[in-house]
């Protein structure tokens, strides 16, 4: 594993060396390390286009790491990974992709992840995107997440894209059965001429299902962001979506909410706020001795934490 790969693995999966438990590390289109455990089996899909991860019912307090590194300029790939999480599991899945592009051709990773979450299972899914390298080639990532949640399951999805990704279109679709709960925390920062779009379609199909989709984002310089969230309530359910964005310089941000209640007891809420950093926040931190720039950085850092 070379230095770039190691650094990217640290950034996207907080990995220092080979992870414990089940893992697959993909570098420039190939698996450079894979390990299954008794409870978690990682195999290759029949069509060879990605992984199949099967987690045995009742697996508790275990993790799976499947980071992706692209350091070859001009590499373009589409990867399909399927996760079958058995009933009553409690697991953490760490994905994430880092592109280091030192060349002039665009590098692109489109990861399509499908989750089939069993009854009463609990999943924490962490996905971090990162780009580096000083080449003029773009770093592009288009993640798609498809989630099927069985009764009383719980999924917490934590997605972060803070630095270096030039263009991203993120799509998340989830279908929830009775009693299932989905919590999403998306954190995003764009700068330069970066573009990021994020779409959520959440179908609250089962009685007592619930979703909370939260996006915190900062758009700097000439970047562009779009956040679209659709909550569809088809039963007695509760849904909340929140987009909170800080806009700076000459960036542009769109927030597009959509709530559809197809049941009289669907309780759905949308909140969206876009605005500059409040002047008084900067002044407050300046009265503590920070410069204007330090104050701004502190506010952004806290906001995206």
């Amino acid at each position, binding site marked *: 594993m070379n230095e770039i790969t190691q650094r990217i693995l640290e950034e996207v999966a907080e990995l220092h060396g080979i992870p414990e438990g089940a893992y697959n590390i993909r570098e420039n289109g190939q698996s450079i390390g894979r390990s299954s455990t008794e409870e978690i089996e990682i195999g290759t899909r029949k069509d060879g286009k990605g992984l199949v991860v099967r987690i045995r019912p009742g697996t508790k307090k275990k993790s799976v790491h499947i980071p992706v590194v692209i350091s070859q300029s001009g590499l373009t790939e589409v990867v399909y990974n399927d996760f079958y999480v058995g009933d009553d599991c409690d697991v953490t899945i760490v994905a994430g992709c880092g592109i280091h592009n030192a060349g002039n051709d665009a590098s692109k990773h489109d990861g399509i992840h499908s989750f089939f979450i069993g009854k009463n299972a609990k999943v924490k899914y962490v996905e971090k995107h990162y780009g580096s390298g000083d080449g003029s080639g773009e770093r592009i990532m288009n993640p798609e997440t498809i989630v099927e949640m069985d009764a009383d399951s719980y999924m917490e999805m934590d997605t972060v894209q803070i630095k270096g990704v030039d263009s991203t279109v993120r799509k998340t679709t989830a279908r929830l059965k009775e009693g299932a709960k989905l919590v999403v925390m998306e954190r995003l920062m764009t700068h330069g001429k970066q573009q990021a779009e994020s779409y959520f379609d959440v179908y609250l199909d089962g009685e007592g299902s619930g979703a909370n989709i939260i996006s*915190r984002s900062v758009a700097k310089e000439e970047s562009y962001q779009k956040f679209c969230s659709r909550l569809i309530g088809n039963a007695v359910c509760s849904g909340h979506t929140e987009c*909170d964005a800080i806009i700076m310089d000459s960036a542009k941000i769109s927030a597009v909410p959509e709530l559809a209640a197809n049941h009289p007891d669907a309780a759905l809420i949308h909140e969206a706020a876009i605005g500059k950093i*409040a002047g*008084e*926040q900067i*002044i*407050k*931190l*300046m*009265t*503590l*001795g*920070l*410069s*204007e720039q330090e104050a701004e950085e*502190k*506010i952004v*850092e*806290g*906001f*995206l*934490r």
Partner: protein
Amino acid sequence: MLELVNVSFGVSQDSQQKDILKNISLKLEDNKFTVITGPNGGGKSTLAKVIAGIEKPCEGKILFNGEDITELSVTERARLGISYAFQQPVRFKGITVFDLIQLASGEKMSVEEACRYLSEVGLCARDYVRREVNASLSGGELKRIEIATVMARRTKLTVFDEPEAGIDLWSFQKLISVFEKLHRENHGSILIISHQERILNIADEIMMIADGQLTACGSREELLPQILGKTVNRGCKAMEG
């Protein structure tokens, strides 16, 4: 020592010039506890902002320990040793009480140390130290955190703009002892903008500002009876607002 020399400040409103501070000259001696009082709209809060550097005077000079700080920014004044507690504390998403106290102290500190400041302002530290300074906190809680924050700075001059506003009665009693302790231990000057007789009662010096002018200035013994007397005569008007 802080000295204001002929400081004036005005704003233009509906294309008319409105004078808020008119030619104010005053001195705050070291280690003194000074309370500025006076009617609402008289210019007290503006004066506090001018000292902190949030507003720039259109005329006059501000000297801090002999140095002319009139042109210095908020940050530069803070670094020289001026602290300012907001009348309406600012909320932040994602920044915790601990972050704020640590930033204020200007150095790395342990959670225990941060908790000490919170306990001093009557907050159960463990419940608050990790909380975000956001809209989930009540006005009174924010106000106490604001006071804890400026205490953590331990500067030569601390300005409080109406610290009693939004604080309930029980906390108010606590607040008085916080100021007394600060005065005892900090070895710096404290300037409080207040209408409260109980805060005036613990002052060394009292200054009265009305209609943008310094109308009276002297020791507590000298001025307090006059102010309270006026209050009675004017049907509490002088103390109200």
